[in-house]
């Protein structure tokens, strides 16, 4: 089995899975019907992409495991998503902040992944990038609305960005599998995206009249399967049916 490729795919797909799950929690509970539709749509797009990735991963595993086994039957430390995407929906500013800080990265990432020598990954990237381009526009717009809206919304948006900032650095860290895949021309060298990312993020934050956090302290761990305390509860729900009713079709 191509272990590095398998892990590399998980690293990509788990981000979308966990973020899609978080977005799914918002459905029916958002500030307006329009935002409910939009957030549900983000979740839908991400989970659609996830299916393509996991189907490919299942093929690589080649042991009869399905996309759902991969999505819902791993142990917590086997999920390789970054800590950013598992952060809770504390309020709408956090949800949009999390989305924005991920979308900017996601777009840059997929843009490069289109050039992957792995044709399946490249095809998924090409198919997904339009969706993600829309996501980025949507979340950037909300950062501006909330940042440059009322005093209260400005305050809340700033707090969310300040808190979530600590999880951005991890996006540009590489695992051993990542490095191996970059070497093979399959993976994206995320370290090269870092400057552009912070530049783009800063542009939006500035337009939103928000301060760019100055903290140099960052959290990491997700890419190596070490998650925050939020993750266990998220997985308890995500895995509930598959764990409770094993080996069934739905």
């Amino acid at each position, binding site marked *: 089995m191509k272990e590095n490729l398998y892990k590399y795919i998980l690293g990509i797909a788990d981000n979308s899975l966990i973020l899609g799950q978080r977005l799914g929690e918002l459905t*029916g509970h958002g500030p307006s019907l329009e935002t409910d539709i939009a957030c549900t749509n983000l979740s839908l797009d991400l989970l659609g992409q996830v299916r393509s990735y996991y189907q490919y991963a299942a093929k690589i595993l080649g042991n009869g495991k399905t996309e759902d086994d991969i999505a819902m039957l791993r142990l917590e430390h086997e999920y390789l998503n970054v800590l950013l995407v598992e952060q809770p929906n504390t309020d709408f500013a956090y949800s949009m902040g999390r989305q924005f800080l991920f979308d900017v990265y996601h777009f840059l990432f997929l843009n490069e992944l289109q050039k992957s020598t792995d044709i399946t990954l490249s095809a998924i990237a090409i198919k997904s990038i339009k969706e993600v381009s829309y996501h980025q526009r949507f979340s950037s717009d909300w950062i501006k609305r909330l940042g440059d809206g009322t005093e209260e919304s400005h305050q809340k948006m700033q707090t969310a960005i300040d808190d979530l900032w600590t999880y951005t650095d991890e996006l540009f860290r590489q695992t051993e599998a990542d490095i191996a895949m970059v070497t093979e021309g399959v993976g994206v060298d995320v370290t090269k995206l870092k400057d552009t990312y912070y530049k783009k993020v800063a542009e939006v934050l500035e337009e939103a009249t928000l301060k760019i956090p100055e903290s140099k302290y960052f959290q990491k761990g997700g890419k190596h399967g070490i998650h925050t305390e939020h993750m266990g509860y998220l997985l308890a729900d*995500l895995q509930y*049916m598959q764990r409770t009713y094993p080996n069934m079709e739905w």
Partner: protein
Amino acid sequence: MGEEQIKNLEAQFEARIARDEKIEPKDWMPEKYRQTHIRQISQHAHSEVVGMLPEGNWITRAPSLRRKVALLAKIQDEAGHGLYLYSACETLGVSRDELYEQLHSGKAKYSSIFNYPTITWADMGAIGWLVDGAAIINQVPLCNTSYGPYARAMVRVCKEESFHQRQGYEIMLKLANGTPEQKAMAQDALNRWWWPSLMMLGPTDAESVHTEQSMKWKLKRKSNDELRQQFIDQTVPQADILGLTIPDPDLKWNEEKGSYDFGEIDWDEFWQVVKGHGPCNKERMKARVGAWERGEWVRDAAMAYAEKQQKRKEKQVV
């Protein structure tokens, strides 16, 4: 306007409806027509929006990615239905905020079925199959109702609803053909949703108000009891295919009348739920009102931002 004149307009108005012409927002209409439509369309819109909650309860726990995606898409459709039904309602001169206010204060109703809990995954199947099934029977005639914006909204709604119904039935089919646990889950869902679904078609004709007027305006084409019979006759064979048992010992085919006889509905339960004492009435309202209140600062911000942008544009023009 004199009384005579109004009578004249009313006569013309009723004649147009009788000729199957559509009434459009700018047309003259009797106040009672307007009020009745505001009530019914908003109630329908509220039902779509509140209806997102019981299904939303299973998004994070859907048993497969395929089902999770389909469930999200379905709920998104419902939000969309809410959106264009509110729009249709707004053409009658009422704002969406007013309509929300009516919902949140308890003045406006929504379909009582959404006051039942979704306890298992099979409820996603039962809701699609039974609840959407009953809804379609209620709604298909509305595609030809007299008020144009409502009729057009309903065409779109019905198309999507029937897709949802098939999807729900397919969930049930998979469960019914699955393991014993899955089959039990499906049967249990049918047991819990059957009677509330029958109640969705409304009180018996004897207890039903507004019927005559609604018939004339084509807001209604058949009586509640006729619709209920239609639903039962259509659903029983579907249950047979699933191999599930409808929880009604009195249910049996009546060769003579060519349809099913069925047991007595517990109308006490129906009125209890309608009056706000169902299993989830409080939870549903808490969820809606909570979302609305928690979202206030967001909506305010969006408004403030839009105004700022507008001013900036005006400055640029100057």
